[in-house]
C-alpha cells in the first residue's frame, strides 16, 4: 500500500484545453489522471447523439486522447479515471479497447466499466411507485415534464470506481459519476479507507472539489493579484498529492505557468458553494468550515483538518428535458451616443415585434459594454463609450415566433439608428433549450454495476 499518490486533473469540463491531459502525463510524475467530461446538460446532448447513432453517446474526444497517452500510461502505470462514458459507457469502453489493441497493448491492461446510473427507462416505474423526483429547486413533481424528458442519470459516487480499481483496471470509464468521486476513488483504493471514515472521505472529496475545475485553482480565472500570475499560456493543471492520513497538497508540474497559493485555492473552494457545512455527495457530507490551508513552498498548498459526516440516504439525479426555444440577436453601435443609439434600436425592434403580435415567454435586452454584467451597479452609461452591443434574447415554448424574431435583427441596420455594424454571422440561430432538473432518489433504487474487461 502506498503512503502518498499524485492525482492529476486533465479537464475541467468537456471542451477544456485539449492538450492539458497530455501535459499532465508528460510534464512530471503522476499516478492517476482524472478527467471530468460531464456538465449538467451534457447527458442530453449525448442521448440525442445516441438516438441518431447507436455507437455514439459518449465523449468522443476521449478515444483519440487515449491513443495519444495510453502507451505512456501503461509503461509508467498511470491509471486513468474518466466519466467519459456519458450514456454509452460500453460503446466508449469498446472504442478504447480497439484503440489499445491497435497500439499493440492487447493483454497488457484492463478497462473498468461503471454503469447503473442511467434511469431513463425506469422513469415510469419510479413515478408509478410514488418516487416523484421533485425538482430540488422548484419542488415541482417530475410528472409535469414527463413527456419532455431527454435523459435521466443518478450521480454515482466513488465506491464503484474503487471496485474497478481494486479489480486491476488501468482505465476506469463511468457514465454520470460525481466529479469529486473521480478523485476520491483512488485514495480509497490505495489507502484502504473505510466506507465510514467520514473525515478522510470528506478530505478526498474536497481534494476533488479543488481540482475538478482544472486550472481554475491554479491561476486561471483568479482575481487575487491576477496581473502578476505568470505564463497562463502555459498554465499548469492541478495535481492533488494525497496521503493516507487524509492530508493533501495541491500543486502543479514544475516549469508550468499559473500559480497555486492559498488565495487561488480559497477562490476555488468557494466556487459554486451552497451551505459550507453541508457539501453533500454520495460518499459523505464534507464540512468546508473545517478546512485549513497552509503554504507549503512554491506552488504548493497543504490542506488539512477536514471533518466529514455520514452520507445521506439519497443520490442526486440529473434529468434533462426539452424546454422550448430561444434566440439571441446582437448589433454593435459606435460612438457618439452609442448607448443611446442601442436603446433607440431596441425601442424600434420591440415596436415591430408588438405589431407582429409575437408571443414570447420572455424577452430581454442587454447593452454589452454599458451594463450587461453588472446592471444598475455599473451606473449611468457615458455618452462617450466607443461602442455598445445591443443584445436581445427571446424565449418561448413555440418555435414559430422565435424564428420570426430572428428576421427582425438585420433589417435594423438599414432601418434604425446610424453607425451600426457587427452582423457578420447572419441571422441568429434558433436554439432548442434543454433544461436541467435536479432531483433526489433513494440510494436503494440505484445499483451500480462494475465490469472489468481485458484488452
Amino acid at each position: 500500500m502506498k503512503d502518498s499518490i499524485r492525482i492529476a486533473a486533465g479537464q475541467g469540463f468537456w471542451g477544456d484545453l485539449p492538450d492539458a491531459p497530455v501535459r499532465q502525463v508528460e510534464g512530471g510524475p503522476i499516478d492517476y489522471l482524472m478527467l471530468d467530461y460531464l456538465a449538467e446538460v451534457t447527458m442530453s446532448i449525448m442521448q440525442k447523439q445516441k438516438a441518431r447513432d447507436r455507437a455514439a453517446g459518449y465523449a468522443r474526444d476521449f478515444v483519440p486522447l487515449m491513443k495519444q497517452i495510453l502507451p505512456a500510461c501503461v509503461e509508467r502505470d498511470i491509471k486513468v479515471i474518466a466519466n467519459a462514458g456519458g450514456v454509452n459507457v460500453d460503446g466508449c469502453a469498446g472504442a478504447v479497447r480497439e484503440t489499445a489493441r491497435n497500439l499493440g497493448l492487447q493483454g497488457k491492461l484492463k478497462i473498468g466499466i461503471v454503469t447503473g446510473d442511467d434511469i431513463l427507462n425506469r422513469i415510469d416505474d419510479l413515478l408509478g411507485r410514488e418516487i416523484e423526483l421533485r425538482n430540488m429547486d422548484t419542488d415541482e413533481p417530475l410528472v409535469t415534464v414527463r413527456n419532455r424528458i431527454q435523459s435521466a442519470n443518478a450521480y454515482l459516487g466513488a465506491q464503484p470506481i474503487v471496485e474497478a480499481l481494486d479489480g486491476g483496471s488501468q482505465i476506469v470509464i463511468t457514465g454520470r459519476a460525481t466529479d469529486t468521486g473521480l478523485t476520491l476513488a483512488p485514495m480509497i483504493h490505495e489507502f484502504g479507507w473505510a466506507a465510514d471514515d467520514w473525515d478522510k472521505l470528506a478530505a478526498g472529496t474536497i481534494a476533488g472539489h479543488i481540482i475538478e475545475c482544472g486550472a481554475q485553482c491554479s491561476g486561471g480565472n483568479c482575481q487575487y493579484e491576477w496581473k502578476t500570475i505568470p505564463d497562463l499560456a502555459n498554465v499548469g493543471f492541478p495535481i492533488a498529492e494525497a496521503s493516507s492520513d487524509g492530508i493533501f497538497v495541491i500543486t502543479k508540474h514544475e516549469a508550468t505557468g499559473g500559480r497555486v497559493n492559498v488565495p487561488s485555492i480559497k477562490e476555488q473552494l468557494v466556487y459554486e458553494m451552497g451551505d459550507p457545512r453541508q457539501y453533500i455527495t454520495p460518499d459523505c457530507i464534507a464540512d468546508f468550515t473545517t478546512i485549513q490551508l497552509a503554504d507549503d513552498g512554491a506552488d504548493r498548498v497543504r490542506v488539512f483538518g477536514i471533518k466529514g459526516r455520514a452520507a445521506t440516504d439519497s443520490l442526486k439525479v440529473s434529468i434533462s428535458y426539452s424546454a422550448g426555444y430561444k434566440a439571441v440577436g446582437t448589433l454593435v453601435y459606435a460612438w457618439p451616443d452609442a448607448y443611446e443609439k442601442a436603446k433607440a434600436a431596441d425601442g424600434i425592434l420591440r415596436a415591430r415585434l408588438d405589431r407582429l403580435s409575437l408571443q414570447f415567454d420572455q424577452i430581454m435586452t442587454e447593452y454589452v459594454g454599458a451594463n450587461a454584467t453588472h446592471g444598475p451597479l455599473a451606473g449611468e452609461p457615458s455618452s462617450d463609450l466607443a461602442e455598445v452591443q445591443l443584445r436581445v434574447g427571446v424565449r418561448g415554448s413555440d418555435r414559430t415566433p422565435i424564428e420570426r424574431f430572428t428576421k427582425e435583427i438585420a433589417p435594423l441596420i438599414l432601418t434604425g439608428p446610424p453607425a451600426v455594424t457587427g452582423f457578420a454571422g447572419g441571422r441568429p440561430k434558433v436554439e432548442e433549450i434543454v433544461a436541467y432538473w435536479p432531483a433526489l432518489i433513494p440510494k436503494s433504487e440505484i445499483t451500480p454495476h462494475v465490469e472489468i474487461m481485458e484488452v
Partner: protein
Amino acid sequence: MKIQLTKLAHARSGDKGDTANIGLIALRDDFYPLLVRKVTAARVKEHFKGICKGEVERFELPNLSALNFLLHESLGGGGTLSLMTDAQGKTFSTALLRMEIEVDEEEAKRLRLDH
C-alpha cells in the same frame, strides 16, 4: 470613511440553477471581522436591487476568512433557460466588490486602511 470592498476582499462567483453564489474572501485575515459586521445579507440584497429578485443567504467560513452568499432568483431562470450574457453568475463576484462600506477612522487606522 468609505472603503470599497476591492480594497478588502477578492471573490469568485458561480451558479446553481437560478441562484448565484458569491464567495467573498478577505485579502488579509484581520479584515474578516469587518466583512462579517458590514457585509450582511440585508446589505447584499440592497446592493443587488433589481438583479436579485429572491432572498439572500449568508454563510460564514472563519477558517478561510470568507463569507458565502446565495442570491436566489438572480439568473433569469438559470442554466440554459436564461437569456442573460452572464447566465452562470460568473461576474457577480466583482459586482459585489463594487460595494462601499463605512469604516470608522480608528478601525481604518488600526487596519492601515487610512492612507
